[in-house]
C-alpha cells in the first residue's frame, strides 16, 4: 500500500524502528522499510554479522549507516541469523534502490513465530503508524 508516498507492502510485518519482516516458510527475511531508507539517504554501510549469531528479541543485531545517520537493527525475534545479503557489502545502496527486494538484509530462524505478533501488520495497524511517523518527522525536519 502507498501511505503518504511511501511503499509499505501489505503482506509484510513492520518493526516500529522501520524494519520489515517477511515470512518464508519457517524462516524470516528482513530489511529496511521505504520510509527509513528515504529518510536516511544513501546507505553507505551495513554490518553483516557472521551466520549463526544468536539473536535476542529487541537486542542489537547489527548497525546500518548512511552519510548522516547511524541506526541499530534490532532483532524482531529470539532465534539465529542464518544468512546475510552479501551483495550489500560492496553495494549498500541496494537498500535505497530496492529495499524490499535486492536490498534485503538478513535471513533469520525464529525460535517462535509468535514473536511476530508484536510487530505491525495489516493496513489497520500500519497506516496510522506511518502517518504518525510522517507527521512526527515533518515537525522535526
Amino acid at each position: 500500500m502507498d501511505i503518504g508516498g511511501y511503499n509499505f507492502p501489505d503482506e509484510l510485518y513492520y518493526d516500529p524502528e522501520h524494519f520489515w519482516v517477511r515470512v518464508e516458510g519457517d524462516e524470516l527475511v528482513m530489511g529496511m522499510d521505504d520510509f527509513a531508507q528515504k529518510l536516511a539517504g544513501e546507505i553507505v554501510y551495513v554490518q553483516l554479522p557472521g551466520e549463526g549469531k544468536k539473536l535476542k528479541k529487541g537486542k542489537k543485531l547489527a548497525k546500518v549507516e548512511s552519510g548522516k545517520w547511524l541506526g541499530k537493527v534490532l532483532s524482531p525475534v529470539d532465534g539465529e541469523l542464518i544468512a546475510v545479503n552479501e551483495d550489500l557489502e560492496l553495494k549498500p545502496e541496494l537498500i535505497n534502490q530496492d529495499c524490499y527486494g535486492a536490498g534485503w538484509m538478513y535471513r533469520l530462524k525464529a525460535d517462535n513465530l509468535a514473536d511476530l505478533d508484536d510487530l505491525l501488520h495489516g493496513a489497520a495497524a500500519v497506516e496510522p503508524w506511518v502517518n504518525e511517523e510522517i507527521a512526527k518527522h515533518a515537525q522535526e525536519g
Partner: protein
Amino acid sequence: MTNEHNLIEQFTEQIQHCTRCGFCQAHCPVFGATGRPALNARGKMLLLKEVLAGKIELNQDLVGSLFQCTTCASCATNCPSGVDVPAIIKAARKQMVGLGTCHPAFTGMNEVLAEHDNIYAEDEPEDFDRERGKQAEVVYFMGCVGQYREEEATEAALDLLDHLEVDYTLIDEVCCSGVLEDVGFSVKPHLASANIERILATGAGTLVTGCPYCYRTFTKQEAYAPLREAGIKIVHLSQFLAGRDLGVHSQAKVTYHDPCDLGRHCGIYEEPRQTIKAVAPNFVELTNHRQDALCCGAGGGVRGAYAKNSLAMARRRLAQVENSGAEVLLTECNSCAHNLANAKLRAQKFRVMTTPQFLMELIEES
C-alpha cells in the same frame, strides 16, 4: 592584510612552488581510491594557481576537489618543494565559506555544532556507568566518535584505566569542535569554554584523550590555550600507556595502522608501538607505515561528505593488512577503527581493534 576573502594569498609563494612533479600523487589516498588527478594535491594546487591568476573563481565548481581531501598530510610529507598542502586546503576552504560556498555536509556540521554539543546531534550519550566531573588526577576525554560510534572501544579504554587503577574522571564533555577548522569553519568558543571549565573544575593535572584529533585540538588550537596555560599535561592515551607493564602477552601476529592525526600531524609513532610490541612480539609493519602510512580515508570530513570514496580508501589500507598476514590490525584512533572496520570485507579474516580493546581482551582472558 589577510581577511576571509584572500586567505590563500598568504600561501601564494608555496602554491607557486608546486612544480607538478607528482610525488604527492603516489601518496594521496583520494587519488589512490579515485584515480582522478584533479583530486590529488597537485591537481588542487593547479586549481589554486588559476584562482590566484584570476583565471577561475573559487566557487561551487571547486567544492568537489578542494573539499575532498582527508588532510592526511602525506602529500606535504613527501613534497620535495615543501608545500604545506593541508594548511593551504584549510585556508582555501575557509575562504570559500567566506564567499558563501561549501559542501553541504560541512555546512551541516557547523550548524549541528551551533545547536548541539556533539557532532552527530545525538541526544542521549552513553553514560558508560562512570562518574563524571569528580575530583581526580586525570580527566579522560572520549571524543564524539568514541562516545557515539565506537562505544565498545571507549568501554575498553575505560576498563583499562580501571584495571591500571588510574585516578580518573569523565566530564560532561562536548565536541572539541577542532574538525571545523579543517572544513572551512572555526572552533566554537562556547564549546571550548565548556570543556575547559569542566576539565579545570576536576582539579586534574593530566588530560588524556582517546581521540587523536581531540589531542591535536587541545594541544594546538588557540581556543584551548587556557588548558595549557593552567599547566595541564595533555597526552593521547597511547602516550599515557607507553612503558606500563600490563602483564599480558599474545602470540598473535599483529600490525598497526598509524592514524594521520597522531602520526604525521603530531609525530607520535613510537609510543603505540612500544606498548603493542611489549605485549605482542610477533609484530609486523604494514608496507606503508609511520610518516609514510596510508590514510584510512576518514579524516578532513571526508567520511561524512564522500562516504563511498572514504571506504574505498580504507579498503586500500586493508589490502595492505591482508598482504602482511596479520591476524589483528590495531590502531589508536576510534575514527580510523570505525572506518576500517566498516570497510573490512567478510572474506578478510583479520580483526580490527583499538589497542585498548586488544589489551583488555588479553587482560580478561588472563
